[in-house]
C-alpha cells in the first residue's frame, strides 16, 4: 500500500532532508510558493557540493525540477512564477556544473529547450539564470552540438552575442566553442559578423574576454581562411589586442591569447614574423606549465601546436633551453596524466628532427624518466613515451653509439607488445624499429631478451599495421646483422610465414616482407640457397609479375639483384626468373625489359643493378653466356635509350652495363 508523503504546510519549519525535499517537489502541484521553497532549498544544498548533487540525482530531483521549471515558464503556478523560474533554472545549472551525470540528467529531462526559451524573457533575472545554466551545460562535452550550419541558428548566436547581458554573451561564446568543429562550421561563423563581435567583447569583463578568446581560437584553429578574415577585421587591430592579452596577468587569458597567436602563426608565417613574439610564446607556455589545473595540463599541447613540423622554431626553442625546461618539469613528477603526456609529446616534437635536441635529452636525467614512463599505469603515457623514445632514437649516431641497446629500455618495450591496446603495441613496435638496427658488433639485447618470437607472433596479427611494423622490425634487425642474429631469425622466418607475408593482402606489408628477404640474403650464399630451395623465390617472382605496386616490384628486383651477387648458380637462377616473359599490352616481353621501360627511377635502377651483377664477371664464360641471353632478350635495345636517362644514377649504371656488354663482345 503506498504511503502518502507527509508534507509540511507552507510557512512551517520544514525538513531539509533530501528525501523530504524530493517529496515536496513532487507534491507542490500548483502551489508555486511550496515549489519555490523546495527548489531553492535544493539549490542551496547542492551548490559546490558534489556529494549532495549525486544524492539528489539518485533521488530523481532533476526531472522534477525541470518539470517545475516548465510549469513556471508556462505560468501555470498561481504565484511567484518568475522567482520560481529563476530558482529552477539556477538549480538545473548547478546540477550541470562540473558533473557529467548531472549534465546527462539535465539533458535527459529536456531542460535545454526550456532554458533557451527563457532567454527571450523580458525579465533580466530570468534571462541571466537561463544563460548561466545553459553555459554550464555547454561547457560539458556531453552537451549536444548546436547546428551552426543553419542560418537561423547563426542569427540566434549573433543575437546572443549582441546582448548587453554578460552571461548571455558568455553563453554564445560557450556555444561556439562547444559546437564549432568542422571547417565548414568555422567558415559559416567567420563569414558573418561573429568574429567582429567577439573581438569587441575582448574589451569586456575578464570572463567575457576569456570566453571570446576561446571562441576566436575555435573558429581560427587550423583554418587559414578564417585567420585571414580575422586579421582583416578593422585593419588587423585585434592582432595587437591579442598580443597584449598574451602578457595578461591572468593565466587563462594568457593561455587563450597565446593559443590564438599560435593558430594565427600556423596559418601563415607572414602574420607572426617577429622572433620576439615567438620567443615570448614559448616562454609563456613554460610559465603556464607551472599552473595547476587545466591550464597547466593544456600548456604543453600549445607548445606542440606552436613548434610542430617547424624546424626553425624548434631550433629556436632549443636555443632557449626548451628540452632542459621540459625535462625539469618531467622530473618534478606527480602531474596529471594529461600533463605528463603533453610534456612527453612536446619533447618528442623537439626531438623529431633535431639531433642536438636528441643529444640534449639523452644527457639529461629526464631521459630515464621518459624510459620509466614505459612502465606507467596509463596507456596514454605508454604511447607518449614511445613517441618520445621513437624520435630520440631516430638517429643513426645515437643508435650506433648503443644508447638504446639496454635492458631497461628493451624489456618494457617487449612487455608493451602484449598490451591489450593495438595502439600501444604499434607505438612500441615503432620504437623497436629504430633501436634494433645493427650498426656495430654489439650483441642485440632485443634478441637476447626473446623479442624475436613476439615479432613472429605479431607478424601474424589480424591487424595489418601490426603486421607491417612487426616485419619492418625484423627487416631492420636483419640489416647488417651478424651471424648470431641471422641464426635466430632465419630458420623461423623461412619455416613459417614469410611466403604468406609476401602475398599479404596489403601492399605495404608485402613491401616490408620483401625488404626483409633482401636484407637476409645480402651477401649470404646460405640464405640465398634457402630462399631458392624453399620456393620463396618463386613466390617473390609471382608477386613481381602481378603486383601493381611499384614499391613491391622495386623490392622484388633488389632481391634478385642480391641473389645475383651470389654464386654462379644463383646468378643463373636469377637470369631464369628475369627473362621469363609476360604479356605487356600486345607484346610478350621479359619482365626485366618491362621494368627497364618503367617510369619509376628506382625500378629501372634496381633492374639494371641486377643485370650488372649477372654480367659483372667478364673473366668467366658464364658471364658471357648470361650477357648473351640478356642481349638476345632485347635488353640492349632498352638500354640504348637509358644511357641518357634523366636520372643520373640510372644513366651511369646503364652506361656501365652497356660498357660491360661491349667488353663481352656484344654491341
Amino acid at each position, binding site marked *: 500500500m503506498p504511503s502518502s508523503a507527509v508534507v509540511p504546510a507552507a510557512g512551517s519549519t520544514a525538513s531539509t532532508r533530501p528525501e523530504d525535499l524530493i517529496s515536496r517537489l513532487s507534491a507542490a502541484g500548483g502551489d508555486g510558493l511550496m515549489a519555490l521553497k523546495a527548489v531553492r532549498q535544493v539549490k542551496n544544498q547542492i551548490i559546490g557540493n558534489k556529494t549532495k548533487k549525486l544524492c539528489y540525482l539518485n533521488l530523481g530531483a532533476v526531472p522534477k525540477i525541470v518539470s517545475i521549471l516548465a510549469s513556471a515558464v508556462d505560468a501555470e503556478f498561481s504565484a511567484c512564477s518568475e522567482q520560481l523560474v529563476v530558482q529552477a533554472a539556477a538549480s538545473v545549472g548547478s546540477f550541470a556544473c562540473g558533473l557529467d551525470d548531472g549534465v546527462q540528467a539535465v539533458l535527459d529531462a529536456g531542460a535545454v529547450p526550456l532554458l533557451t526559451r527563457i532567454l527571450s524573457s523580458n525579465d533580466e533575472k530570468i534571462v541571466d539564470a537561463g544563460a548561466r545554466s545553459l553555459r554550464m551545460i555547454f561547457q560539458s562535452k556531453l552537451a549536444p552540438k548546436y547546428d551552426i550550419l543553419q542560418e537561423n541558428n547563426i542569427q540566434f548566436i549573433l543575437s546572443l552575442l549582441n546582448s548587453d547581458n554578460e552571461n548571455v554573451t558568455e553563453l554564445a561564446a560557450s556555444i561556439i566553442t562547444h559546437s564549432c568543429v568542422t571547417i565548414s562550421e568555422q567558415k559559416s561563423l567567420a563569414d558573418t559578423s561573429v568574429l567582429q563581435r567577439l573581438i569587441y567583447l575582448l574589451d569586456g569583463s575578464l570572463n567575457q574576454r576569456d570566453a571570446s578568446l576561446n571562441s576566436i581560437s575555435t573558429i581560427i584553429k587550423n583554418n587559414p581562411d578564417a585567420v585571414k578574415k580575422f586579421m582583416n577585421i578593422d585593419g588587423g587591430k585585434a592582432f595587437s589586442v591579442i598580443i597584449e592579452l598574451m602578457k595578461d596577468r591572468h593565466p587563462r587569458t594568457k593561455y587563450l591569447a597565446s593559443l590564438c597567436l599560435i593558430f594565427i602563426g600556423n596559418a601563415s608565417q607572414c602574420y607572426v614574423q617577429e622572433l620576439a613574439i615567438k620567443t615570448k610564446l614559448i616562454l609563456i607556455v613554460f610559465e603556464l606549465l607551472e599552473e595547476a589545473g587545466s591550464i597547466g595540463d593544456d600548456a604543453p599541447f600549445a607548445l606542440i601546436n606552436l613548434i610542430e613540423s617547424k624546424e626553425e622554431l624548434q631550433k629556436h626553442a632549443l636555443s632557449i633551453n626548451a628540452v632542459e625546461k621540459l625535462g625539469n618539469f618531467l622530473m618534478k613528477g606527480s602531474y596529471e596524466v594529461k600533463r605528463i603526456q603533453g610534456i612527453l609529446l612536446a619533447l618528442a616534437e623537439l626531438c623529431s628532427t633535431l639531433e642536438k635536441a636528441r643529444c640534449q635529452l639523452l644527457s639529461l636525467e629526464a631521459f630515464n624518466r621518459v624510459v620509466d614512463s614505459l612502465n606507467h599505469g596509463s596507456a596514454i603515457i605508454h604511447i607518449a613515451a614511445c613517441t618520445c623514445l621513437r624520435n630520440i632514437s631516430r638517429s643513426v649516431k645515437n643508435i650506433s653509439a648503443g644508447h638504446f641497446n639496454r635492458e631497461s629500455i628493451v624489456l618494457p618495450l617487449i612487455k608493451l607488445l602484449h598490451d591489450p591496446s593495438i595502439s600501444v603495441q604499434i607505438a612500441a613496435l615503432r620504437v623497436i624499429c629504430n633501436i634494433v638496427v645493427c*650498426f656495430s658488433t654489439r650483441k642485440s639485447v632485443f634478441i637476447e631478451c626473446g623479442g624475436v618470437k613476439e615479432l613472429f607472433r605479431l607478424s601474424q596479427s589480424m591487424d595489418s599495421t601490426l603486421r607491417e611494423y612487426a616485419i619492418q622490425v625484423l627487416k631492420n634487425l636483419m*640489416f647488417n646483422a651478424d651471424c648470431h642474429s641471422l641464426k635466430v631469425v632465419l630458420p623461423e622466418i623461412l619455416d613459417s610465414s614469410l611466403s604468406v607475408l609476401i602475398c599479404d593482402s596489403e601492399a605495404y606489408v608485402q613491401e616490408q616482407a620483401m*625488404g626483409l628477404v*633482401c636484407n637476409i640474403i645480402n651477401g649470404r650464399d646460405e640464405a640465398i640457397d634457402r630462399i631458392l630451395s624453399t620456393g620463396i623465390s618463386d613466390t617473390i617472382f609471382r608477386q613481381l609479375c602481378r603486383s601493381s605496386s611499384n614499391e613491391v616490384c622495386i623490392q622484388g628486383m633488389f632481391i634478385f639483384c642480391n641473389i645475383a651477387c651470389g654464386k654462379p648458380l644463383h646468378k643463373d637462377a636469377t637470369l631464369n626468373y628475369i627473362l621469363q616473359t609476360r604479356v605487356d599490352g600486345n607484346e610478350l616481353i621479359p619482365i626485366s625489359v618491362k621494368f627497364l621501360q618503367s617510369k619509376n627511377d628506382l625500378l629501372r635502377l634496381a633492374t639494371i643493378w641486377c643485370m650488372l651483377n*649477372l654480367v659483372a664477371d667478364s673473366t668467366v664464360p658464364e658471364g658471357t653466356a648470361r650477357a648473351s641471353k640478356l642481349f638476345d632478350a632485347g635488353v640492349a635495345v632498352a638500354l640504348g635509350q637509358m644511357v641518357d636517362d634523366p*636520372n643520373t644514377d640510372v644513366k651511369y649504371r646503364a652506361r656501365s652495363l652497356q660498357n660491360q656488354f661491349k667488353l663481352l663482345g656484344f654491341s
Partner: protein
Amino acid sequence: MVFNQKKESWNSCRSRLLQFVSHRKMGVRRSSEVSDSAPSSSVSGKEDNSGCSLLPPECSLLSVGQAFGGTQNVSSMQKEEAWRVNVRIQGVDRDHGYLCGTMEALNVPSADTPVVTFWEGEIIDTKNYTFYTGKWEASHEDDTRHWSKFASFSEFSTQVESSDGGRSLDMSSCPYIFMRWKEQYFVNVGKDCGLTIAGFYYVCFSCQDGSINGYYFDPNSSPFQMLELKPTHEGRSGVGFSSYQLQ
C-alpha cells in the same frame, strides 16, 4: 683519426681505415612520420625557377649498405707509409645534406686492434652546406686549397669565391659529390687510445664508379694526407643492397 700529437711525437703520421656500409631505401614512405636514412628517389628542397633540382644527383653507390676500402697516405718527412682504411655508410639524409658511417683503421701502429670511429658527413649541396666549412678551424683559404686538389672542383672554383662558398651553384649535373666527413667518436676504443679525431676530411665521391678521394685537414697535422677508397663487395660477386627504415 690521427695520432694525438700531445701524446705522440710522431706528429706527421696519421692513419685512416674506413669501413662503410651504405644502405638505400628501396621503397617509398607510406607515412609522413617515417624518417628513412636512405635517399628517396626524388630530391625535394632547393629548386631553380624552372622547378628543377639544383642539388647534386643521388647515387646508389653512396647509399646505406655500401662499403669502401683503400688507403690513407700517412707519409711524413721521416718515412713513406699508407694505412689500410675501410669505410661503411650507415645513414643518408639527403634533405638535410647529411650522411654518416664508420671508419676503420686496420694497421694503426699504436693500437692492438683495428680502430673504428663514427663519422658524420656534410654533403655540399649548396642548400644545407656550401664549399665553405666555416668551422673546425678551416678558413676559406684552407677550403679553397683543399677543394682545389680535386680536378673535378675546377669548374666551380671561380663561382665558389664569388658566391659565398657556392650558395647559388647548380650541382645537379656534376658527376661528383663533394662532402666533408668529421669523425665524432671512437666506437671500439677509449679517447685515450693515442689517436685524435680533431680534424676532418674534404671528400670527393665519383658517382660513376663510386671511388672516393679525400684530404685530411687538421691545422696541427701534416697537410693534404690523402684518402683513396674504392667500393668493395665484401665477398659478393656484385653490388648488394640492404635497407632499414627509421621511424
